């Protein structure tokens, strides 16, 4: 009984012995058992002979063209992989912060130049006189002759009102007044104050005061 079990175990391990996949001590023990089972030993010998015969089977050489085709595809893939490997990671901008001082200096220069330009223009505006002296012999608004008759005040009232200030007109427009057709209106925001070509007109209150004075005379 034990011999039958031994034989079965021996046959199961025969393949491992044939291909030398057993530890040396186990292989030695198995070879010792083979002496008790000559038929199993004979099978092992035949398998070994079979292996010797199989070793004579020649190996085939693959087609070199296949080799080159595979290599070409591999080189393309490798180039692609190398390109991806050298692509900067998302945190690469942190490395680029080393250029920050130079960028800051450039920003300061630009800012300084801009401020200098603004200040220069402001100074030019301040240097230009806002009111030009009226030409000789030309009456000013204050010296304009009053309408004949005693209804100077009525004439004052009938006179066309001073055009409202632009800001006021702008407000009215923003309150929902219909837009007029025609070319686009110029912006009401004045970026640069131009010197007035004519003398400033007297305000309404001062004109009516002067008219009332003339009447009282």
């Amino acid at each position: 009984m034990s011999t039958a079990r031994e034989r079965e175990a021996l046959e199961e391990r025969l393949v491992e012995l044939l291909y030398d996949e057993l530890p040396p001590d186990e292989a030695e023990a198995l070879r010792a058992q083979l002496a008790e089972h000559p038929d199993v030993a004979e099978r092992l010998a035949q398998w070994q002979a079979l292996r010797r015969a199989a070793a004579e089977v020649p190996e085939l050489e693959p087609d070199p063209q296949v080799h080159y085709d595979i290599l070409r595809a591999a080189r393309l893939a490798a180039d692609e992989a190398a390109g991806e490997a050298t692509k900067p990671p998302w945190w690469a901008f942190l490395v680029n912060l080393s250029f920050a001082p130079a960028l800051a200096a450039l920003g300061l220069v630009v800012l300084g130049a801009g401020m200098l330009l603004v200040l220069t223009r402001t100074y030019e505006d301040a240097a230009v006189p806002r009111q030009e002296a009226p030409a000789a012999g030309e009456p000013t608004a204050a010296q304009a002759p009053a309408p004949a008759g005693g209804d100077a005040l009525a004439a004052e009232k009938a006179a066309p009102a001073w055009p409202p200030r632009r800001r006021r007109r702008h407000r009215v427009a923003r309150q929902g007044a219909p837009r007029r057709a025609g070319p686009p209106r110029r912006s009401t925001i004045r970026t640069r104050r131009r010197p007035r070509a004519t003398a400033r007109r007297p305000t309404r209150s001062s004109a009516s005061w002067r008219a009332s004075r003339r009447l009282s005379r």
Partner: protein
Amino acid sequence: MLNLILMALRRRAAPPGDDDADEVLMERFRKGDARAFERLLERHEKAVYNFIFRLVRDRELAHDLLQETFLRVVKNAKGYSPKAKFTTWLYTIARNQGIDALRRAKHRRHPSLDQAQGPDPDGRTLMDKLPGNSDDGFERTDASEIRVRVEAAIDRLSDEQREVFVMREFQQMPFKDIAGVVGVSENTIKSRMRYALENLRLALADYADDLPNAVDPVPARSRA
């Protein structure tokens, strides 16, 4: 700047050596080193081709499958994990290619007795390989004759037994690795190997006396 220096250094890295493990070469290829793949191809191309040829027994088809196998290696290189053994992965791909091709060709494969067998298109036919076809029955069997008989006997093995026999005998793969490729237990592989050896022994029983003597342990084949 630092990136540029690193790139230059990487490109000037030492070429892959002969002693580099397959897994190391594969890792280098994943990073864009084409020479590493070239080394892998030189190392395994012939063995994989012979493995596929033993499975499908058709040279042209074996060439196509060899190309497809390595192209899949290239394509799936990103998904390769260095923890897995490269040869196991490679032969799994090759085996799957072979099995698919066998399934496709199964319905149309009817080998004729006059069809040339083996790699040589002008080689011996199946009729020539059948035992007992000599005129006098006493024809002396030489080494090439034995070789042809062995090849024919291997071809007649079942697909399961043949793939195990080829991987262990011709590719020198341990049973454990074969189990990884085939996807079954190691004991199942050993069992298939026993059946394969027995079938080959019975198929070559007529030539038992002509087989090389097996007094000494079988030396390891020089194939790698």
